[in-house]
């Protein structure tokens, strides 16, 4: 599947890796729900690092939508809340 890290572009990620990413994803979501900044940051960093490690960059000219969109490095919990709210992901 194709995953986008906001601000970095798209990556091909094997579906087999989805399980591992889902676990991190769940942790991240939990941290945001608990408003727990101290666990939010490391989990986000780990999630992005894993995606970068296992992902292969999609060639820039490809016009394919992503299945998953992840917040970029340095995103705040506030940014992530906006993404989760589902409305403000793609402005315009």
């Amino acid at each position: 599947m194709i995953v986008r890290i906001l601000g970095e572009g798209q990556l091909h990620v094997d579906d087999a890796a989805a399980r591992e990413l889902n676990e991190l994803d769940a942790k991240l979501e939990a941290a945001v729900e608990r408003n727990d900044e101290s666990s939010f940051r490391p989990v986000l960093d780990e999630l992005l690092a894993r995606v970068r490690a296992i992902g292969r960059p999609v060639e820039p000219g490809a016009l394919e939508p992503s299945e998953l969109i992840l917040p970029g490095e340095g995103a705040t919990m506030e940014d992530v809340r906006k993404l989760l709210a589902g409305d403000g992901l793609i402005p315009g």
Partner: protein
Amino acid sequence: MFRAKTNKVLDRMEDPRETLDYSYQTQLELLQKVRRGVADVATSRKRVELQMNQLQQSSDKLDRQARDALSVGREDLARDALTRKSGLQSQLNELNTQYTTLQGEEERLTGASQRLQAKVESFRTKKETIKATYTAAEAQTRINEAFTGISEEMGDVGLAIQRAEDKTEQMRARAGALDELMASGAIDDMVSGPRDDIQLELDRMGASHDVDAELARLKGELSQGSAPREIEASAASSDGAAPGNTAATDGQAASAAPPAGPQAGDGT
């Protein structure tokens, strides 16, 4: 977690081919915007760089002053200079952090600009193909495909531009404040006091040091008394003693005169 949303533009589509052209225009505008964004961030970064250079020069000057002060035994002045230097140093550290942030934004936006450009070019090719082989039946799917990929990229680039604008705006405000401080001389005051009092003191000490050296030189000359005159006299007599080598006639005429003096004196 964050399921991608399809573009709302699709719902409003009437003639798909027109929408393709319209979307392409929007993409080109966004591309312009992201390039301007890169230029803006670069300008802010250069401005911070300039300020860092200025502060660094001031800091180097204080460092030299501290050394000069120590070399003439004025630890108090040296301490004063170093205290001011440490004040500058913390300003420099802050600027350095800003510089790194701006550099990061610049790289990010440059990357976004390149990705968007590649996608816009693909979109243009695809658009032309779709228009050339247009049949209503297949158009909807193919246009959907073209749109979803580019609109997501556009959204991402839009966010990146927004973020970079926010950052540079903050930096610009701070850089402006620092520029005003520099222009008003307040930073200079911070560097070396209202009239550069450290330098004045060093200059005063330097001047008195120079006066001492000059005095010593004069004293030395006086104590040697007539020595310079003897040297002149011997030089003149050697000129007279060895005439013909250089200018025969002139040398001869000149050399005739000095011996004439003593001879005349001898005579009387």
